């Protein structure tokens, strides 16, 4: 008990000695705050800095003009993104169908379509090699099978069989 009393007295004395050391504040102006500044009533409330009365945290000091710049940009970007997203679902893809003429009408037969030309070319290149491409490409008009022979499949088979019989 007596020891703690002695310790407390010692600490109090030490506190007093510490308190007698004046903190150094060389760069602190002696005439601050200036009287006119301290006594002037505020006429410009918009120039206030807002610091929370309870916690001392500072409120953002962004000027009002810039305060809504980010929300506006965010809203605009969101709108554009939404419009593009809807546009993706509303967009109807155009069908890319190649029509092949199979009936015997004269004007369709006269204009060979691309598809038979491709098939003919492919078969020839596979059969004779790439060098034969030139000969195929040089021909201006590729005739469709319908144009080549008006006969049907069954007649071609019969013709082929007859030739085999003759050869045999």
């Amino acid at each position, binding site marked *: 008990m*007596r020891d703690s*009393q*002695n310790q407390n*007295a*010692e*600490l109090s*004395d*030490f*506190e*007093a*000695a*510490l*308190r*007698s*050391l*004046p*903190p*150094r*504040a*060389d*760069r*602190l*102006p002696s005439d*601050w*705050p200036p*009287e006119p*500044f*301290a*006594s002037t009533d*505020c006429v410009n*409330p918009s*120039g*206030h*800095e*807002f*610091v929370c*009365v*309870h*916690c*001392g*945290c*500072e409120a953002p000091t962004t000027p009002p003009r810039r305060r809504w710049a980010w929300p506006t940009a965010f809203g605009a970007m969101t709108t554009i993104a939404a419009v593009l997203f809807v546009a993706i679902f509303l967009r109807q893809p155009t069908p890319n169908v190649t029509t092949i003429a199979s009936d015997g009408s004269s004007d369709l037969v006269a204009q060979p379509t691309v598809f038979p030309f491709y098939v003919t070319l492919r078969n020839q290149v596979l059969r004779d090699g790439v060098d034969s491409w030139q000969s195929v490409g040089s021909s201006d008009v590729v005739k469709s099978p319908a144009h080549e022979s008006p006969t049907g499949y069954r007649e071609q088979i019969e013709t082929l069989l007859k030739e085999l019989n003759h050869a045999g």
Partner: protein
Amino acid sequence: MGTLGPDAVTQLWREQSRALVLYARQWCDTPEDIVQEAFLTLVRQPDAPDHPTGWIYRVVRNRAQNAGRARRRRQSRETVAAENRPSWFEPGQDDRLDADAAAEALQQLPDDQREAIVARIWGGLGFDEIARLTESPTSSVYRNYRRGLLVLQERLGWKCETPKTKTRS
């Protein structure tokens, strides 16, 4: 609630400005600037805080810690600045304590102990006010304060000159 009157601001300045400088010096190299800015902020407040002393300590603490963080980012310049760092105290009237030694011993204390001692001894704040300031329990603040004082006493080789209670021979 209106703004703080000029007399109150002036009085607060006279009572606390030096202590606030010491308080801010724990974290940053420009404590005088921090203190002046804090007082300017206080004057510009549309509503005066309920406890201006605690409030201004809080503002100084926040700003000094921010400034300290910014200083640490400029790490390369710190070594030069540390060599020219001024002492924390002016020579006191009590010649039992050396100002430089006290400052050095104070700087070597842990942050929470040093903060409690500075706020209590030079700022004159109560333990409950320091607890609110540091957002820690009052008992912890008291413990830190007392422990810090004992460490300081030991480091400074303090010998009490007050007469001790006499023991019966």
